[in-house]
């Protein structure tokens, strides 16, 4: 077999800030459907997003922990697509100027330390949740709409499932320690 395993990962991490990324709604997992919502996170006409400073702070902390360059000037961009759990018809994310870039995570292999390079870490908002019922209906819960995320993108530097596992463990442990040590159980990697 002439094939070589090459793995790159894109990881979304939910930030457990008190409030959502662009409004003052509580950022809380679960809860009765559509109770943690306001005109901003519901994307109602006329509403204007307002960036939560904590999201920026957490994003930068992660960037520093993973040896990234931190952008001196950054911006948000719109990613346009239609889906019923996407309230505005676009996701507010970062495109050409991510908050953090060019980092790395070191993992320990038998043959020594390996650097897995990070392409970028950017901040963005989560979408709502579609709930598909047995009767074939789709229900929509927007409690999660506007929950802050960081997206971590690696270079294709891992060459086995074991390396990917080690990378994720290191990443998870670091994030827990630097950003969320008080709320350990709330880190989700998916």
């Amino acid at each position, binding site marked *: 077999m002439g094939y070589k395993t090459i793995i790159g990962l894109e990881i979304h991490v939910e930030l457990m800030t008190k409030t959502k990324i662009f409004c003052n709604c509580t950022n809380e997992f679960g809860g009765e459907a559509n109770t943690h919502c306001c005109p901003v996170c519901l*994307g*109602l*006409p*006329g509403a204007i997003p307002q960036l939560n400073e904590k999201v920026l702070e957490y994003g930068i902390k992660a960037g520093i922990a993973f040896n990234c360059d931190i952008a001196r000037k950054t911006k948000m961009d719109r990613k*346009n697509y239609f889906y019923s759990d996407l309230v*505005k*018809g676009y996701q507010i994310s970062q495109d050409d100027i991510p908050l953090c870039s060019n980092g790395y995570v070191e993992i320990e292999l038998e043959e020594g330390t390996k650097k897995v390079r990070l392409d970028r870490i950017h901040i963005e908002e989560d979408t709502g949740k579609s709930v598909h019922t047995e009767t074939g209906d789709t229900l929509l819960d927007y409690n999660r709409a506007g929950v802050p995320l960081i997206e971590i993108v690696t270079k294709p530097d891992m060459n086995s499932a074991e390396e990917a596992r080690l990378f994720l463990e290191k990443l998870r442990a670091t994030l827990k320690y630097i950003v969320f040590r008080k709320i350990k159980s709330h880190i989700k990697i998916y």
Partner: protein
Amino acid sequence: MDIIDLKAWEMKEKLLNREISSREILESHLNRVEEVEKDINAFITINREKALLDADIIDKKIKNGEEVGALAGIPIGVKDNIMTKDLRTTAGSKILEDFISPYDATVIKKIKENHGIILGKTNMDEFSMGGTTQSSYFGPTKNPLDNTKVPGGSSGGSAAAVKSKEVPLSIGSDTGGSIRQPASYCGLVGIKPTYGLVSRYGLIALSNTLDQIGVFGRDVQDAVLMLNVISGKDQRDFSTMDSKALDIESLEKVDSLKGIKVALPKEFFLGEMDDRVKAEMDKSINIFKDLGATIEEIDLPSVKYALETYHIITSGDISSNMARFDGIRYGYRAKDYETLDELYINSRTEGFGEEVKRRILFGTYILSGHRGKEYYDKALKIRTKIIGEFNNVFSKYDIILSPTSPNLAFNLGEKRSEIYSRNEALFQMPVNLAGLCAISVPTGNKEGLPVGLQIIGDRFKEIDIIKAAFAYEGMVK
């Protein structure tokens, strides 16, 4: 004198002196609405019941000797793209025909805190896309001065409502001339404030970096009264700044413009211009000279690209901003659909009018793939160039003068040539592209359709254009 003939500031004086009551003010305006609406169609929704309750509350406050706000008892028209809680907000579109907002726009909160009375929601081009108020789903608004003419747009309902004395004051929005042009066509004072002076929270976005809420009044003082209430920093709109720039308290009516340096951009006078506008402009220049201002011709070479720049930026923004109207959470949903895609397609096909669809298509096209760089990014560069040229002018001059529009109000249903639209765009769009403030003041011609004089000021220099407008108005009244 009938109450509706009074200016807002006069009404307020009489109200505070207890010569008239808030209820009397409101009822006289509601009667006027009854009388003229069938001919004018300035309003989409009338807020009769709630407005009457509000008026009674204000009368009670005055009776009890309580403090009342700056707009106490003044009936106000609100453009229907500004969110009003419990009162429908349609944006002139079928897709929002039954939409009732759960929240108030910041400007509405401020109006309510100052005891202004929202009499109704005014007609507009659908989602502000147009300059005639003919693209409204709720039928065209007519110019109160001549019912065969358009009132201008897109805030045509707000202009017509004030001109026809259905309300003394109204608010509109201006993305590329949508307040100044109808003010000019209807013979009113209209102010497009600096980008960032008035909160956009609760204004349906057309083009986010160009939109600004502004005001209509029958004289400068009325317009300023309204502007003063709605300006100021808002936590919910990060582009807003503290409005100390607009120090109304220190503003006294001026009758001299000695020492004021006025710039006349050559580029504004190269194209076709209605003879009547030309004549009024010449008179106006002489009035400014008589007032003691110095006037010099200047160059703004890049404004000739304003129309293309504006349409590329706004259409790009529109294609994205209109995406939320998908029939899922609120607004119109098609009756027939099998799949999710059909739900979107049918709802938007049936819900949006022609002009909105045209701009969504154009915007989507120019943002797709490599075209984003080719068009949108280039338009942003030209915009920066235009801003630079204005900065240069304002480093040497206080204000810029031009006609608000090279044209007069034209016939309803009349198809205008591309050159006609292009000429008009030249006078209005650069102000939004550069985030400047501008006021349109009637020139005072006594016969025929009105002409507007546009006074453009630097960012957050509202005080400069208002002073000039006061002085000019004093001379032409």
